[in-house]
């Protein structure tokens, strides 16, 4: 029932995500929802063991929560996950939808960008970058080393000289090498991992 409501609520999915996928994600949602109150709290997410060992785990958890909220319902859950739905071939051929789908490359990148950009000023400052770097490297790295890396990273991507990375710079930063940008790989990743999951829901063999 809730699932159906959700279908109504999320036109994005009606078009592309099959019923079984939603059902599956919904059952995942309910299994995460230990409080059984129809929403997930941060603790529900934090209870996922794998996230405890993911360096960016808490950032990602936060991405599920709209600003200022501490609960996310199934719709919000799906909305965030939808970023990672693969871009399907038949979708590409269709006439472009009025609004950009959540899973467009830009939106995927935006999602990543937002994880860096904590203060939502649409810029990754040196400090924000530094924080993420700090999360992603081992403890044995000195602050100086990290700082210099952050500086170099910003230098490399910064085109307008404001010592921060804007979203356009963020996208562009990698466009310099067309053959093998990480975005390509990003798409590959998504196609390989997430898609497979979302499409063949509830099957026997999983990772």
């Amino acid at each position: 029932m809730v699932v159906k409501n959700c279908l109504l609520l999320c036109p994005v999915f009606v078009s592309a995500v099959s019923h079984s996928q939603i059902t599956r994600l919904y059952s995942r949602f309910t299994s995460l929802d230990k409080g059984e109150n129809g929403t997930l709290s941060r603790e529900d997410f934090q209870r996922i063991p794998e996230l405890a060992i993911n360096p960016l785990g808490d950032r990602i958890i936060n991405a599920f929560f709209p600003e200022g909220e501490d609960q996310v319902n199934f719709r919000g859950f799906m909305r965030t996950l939808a970023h990672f739905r693969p871009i399907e071939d038949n979708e590409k051929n269709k006439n472009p939808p009025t609004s950009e789908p959540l899973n467009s490359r830009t939106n995927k990148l935006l999602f990543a960008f937002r994880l860096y950009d904590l203060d939502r000023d649409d810029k990754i400052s040196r400090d924000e970058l530094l924080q993420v770097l700090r999360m992603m490297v081992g403890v044995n790295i000195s602050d100086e080393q990290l700082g210099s890396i952050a500086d170099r990273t910003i230098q490399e991507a910064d085109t307008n000289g404001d010592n921060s990375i804007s979203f356009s710079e963020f996208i562009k930063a990698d466009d310099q090498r067309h053959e093998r940008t990480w975005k390509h790989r990003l798409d590959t990743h998504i196609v390989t991992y997430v898609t497979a999951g979302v499409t063949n829901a509830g099957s026997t063999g999983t990772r």
Partner: protein
Amino acid sequence: QSGQPPLRAPYFLASLPSSAPFTIALFPGTEYALPGVASARSAVADQPVDPGGEEEDATEHHHHHHGGGYRMVQWEWSYVQTPYVIAVWLLVASVAKILFHFSQRFTKVVPESCMLILLGLVLGGVVLLANEKQVYQLEPALFFLFLLPTIVGDAGYFMPSRLFFDNLGAIMTYAVVGTLWNAFCTGFCLYAAKLLGVIDDSVQADLMDFLLFGALISAVDPVAVIAVFEEVHVNEMLFIIVFGESLLNDAVTVVLYKVYISFVEVGPKNVQTADYFKGVASFLIVSVGGTMVGLVFAVILGFITRFTKKVRIIEPLFVFLLVYLAYLTAELFSLSAILSMTFCGIGANKYVEANISQKSRTTVKYTMKTLASIAETIIFIFLGISAVDKSKWAWDTGLVSCTLVFIFVFRAMGVVGQTWFLNRFRLVPLDKIDQVVMSYGGLRGAVAFALVVLLDGDQVKAKDYFVATTIVVVFFTVMFQGLTIKPLVKWLKVPQSTNKKPTINEEIHERAFDHILTAVEDIAGLQGYHHWRDKWEQFDKNYLSKLLLRKSVYRKSELWEAYQKINIRDAISVIDQGGNVLTSAQLSLPSMTSRASFPDITNYLRENGSGVCLDLQMIDNVPGAKMKEDLETHHFLLGNLYKPRRRYQPHYSRHFMPVGEQERQDREVFQRNMKRRMSARYIRHKRERSLRKHKGSDFKDNEGDKSRRNVSFHDKDAVLVSMELDGNKAEHSDSEKEVDVGITFSARKAETPKQRPKSVPAALEGDQSQPFHPLSPPCGDSHLPWKGGVGSLPPCISVEATKLIPVDLQEAWNQSISSLESISSPPALTEPMHRRVSALSRPGGSRPVSYTPSRPVSYTPPGISSSASQGSFSFPEKKKKELKKEKSSESQEMQPLLLEPPSAPPPPPPDRGRNPCVYLRSLVTAPPAGSSELSSRGPTQL
């Protein structure tokens, strides 16, 4: 026997070689039952380690008082023979291993199993030359009763069970269907080849014989597969599939083998249709029965280890004994012993690991690995030795070549076909490379060999031919395929990688995205979410864990146990190095302050940065050096960025068990995340506490004024669930409330009852803790915000999670506190505390003018900055606070509203700020009135 004289008896030598194989002598029981058998010639004679023994040690037969008279030194060979031989044998194998690993380059190219076989060949050659007749060979009994169990036990016990069950469908398919396919096809095709005359007429075998042979030759061998795969470093999933398959298909093979054997014994003509069904039934019984026996023993093992607290020393023994008993018991009922042992290991692992002590865990781990390693070594050496003995086998080129071709072709066909089928259901399909590796990785090994040796030469006329063929097949697959599989994998994977260097941005973002994807997969449960697994976990939690885990273990979730340890260690280490960190903080501080005025960071760093930065930047000035610098950074990042999970190597390794990168990384990350969460939690509680003090007066204001934009990030970080719990519980009953209080820190527990005026009903008390709720906008609009929030949600939030927290949390806190008390040095503590205070005092709302986007540094949201950039520092402060709370709770908490100003730390001297941005913030926000109480109240008021 005591007076056995030394024998100088070369003439005995002649009588010895004809004696039974050495391996039989390995069984004490057998040995004494069959005195003649015990006269096996010692292995020592062949070993270089015992140069003088050749002549002298041939002293098997018990000649009593041969020489007469009293001897000072006696030659007690027969007395020590069996253990001596075993020990020397193992010594040789182990020394050989050391030698193998001397040359790093060599071991990279040649799998260890190949080298062991080669060693076996050499040893066999030596023995053969010395004796002209082979005395040592792999005996089925030795293999099945001792060598195989150690290997299987090790594999089962350390099997990454989650991965195993995730891929259970695929594993079962490959193991059962694949093996049956291989067995039948190989059998029939060999028979066809025989009919066609490809196979020589001297091979006297009919259809049943060939089917039998097909069955025994079709099993992929776990020993060989582990040996090769772990050196090839295939991906985790592929590894577990092939490895799991090889474990399970042994069961299939053995069952098939036994069925055929009984058919052969009866004679093909006498086999009736019903017998075929019996065969099928026996197959089911054998495998299911074996599994059941294993599970039963797993339960027993778990149950026993529950009570070993007083006898820690024999904990490991229980593990070995019961796992081994599981094997023997299954064997006793002629069920599948391999399955039994595997499932015993898989099943018991979780409970045993939780029950036994850390040291026992280590002991079990090392002993199992050692035994398995020994067994593997011995098997391969025996294989080599057996091959030398020509009398045991007969050669037929047709049979050998046909077999080689057939097993390879059918393996490939089977893999491709089944994969095609499985990929329709799998979340993560097996790609072409995986299939090639699987086909090519179908190594045959000792199991096949042992089975073929077991054949009864009277009933299976072509036994000698089969033995020869099996040896060749084993050699070919292990040696040739084992040697070439690595280059093959490399070669196949080449197209995937390019030699272009990614930019730093790519490098970082890519890795970040990997992490994100991994996390999303985890959240969406793509790592293998099963309805059944959920059910199982529920069952496990409700019944099994209660039955099989110690009370103490059961109460404590492992997570919190780990957290507690980390917590304490951190507290200590922070204090220990507090001075150092502060010094470096002083260094970096000026750079950050002035950076605000120098927009060009690099310029600034070039002038004033620390040594490291300076060097790098200097290089930057030199034309052309940029490349080098890039390279350095690249390497640096490559080496130090955390790796997403899927890049891990397979868990299972026979030869190495490092506390690998992965484990270290997991620990670090886990530690940080927990700290972050705890600090978020702490903030919440602190605020809650302050709110509570100002209850009734201003929480409604909070509501109205709360501006979403101004919610600083740590607000989002804060975990609010147990807040709600407070509210919910309070509504239910006072007693529940008490339980609930336990969730929060001990300080609060102490304070709650006191703080609450007697006239205030419990429910109201609950409400008072609610004002936090307003943080979520939806609630903000309802009439009674805290009620609104609760009302909209069904009333129960996982109690279980919160139940776990309090006990451990308190312990953790207490222990940290005590450790802090003993070592704490005030400066180290006050500074971070100040930082936190300032953090709290800087709510989103009243953002000082000086906070301008041009200085993003100062924007760091407190919650994050504390965890990300200086996670370790958020701790002492909490502790200190906590400590203070403890101390003051009795007295100060009595007065609800209280100014804690006296206890508020004085703003630290500026130069002590470790993190410049924190320092900056503290300057900017200038904690008003120096009252921590007031400032911490800030956020909620806004």
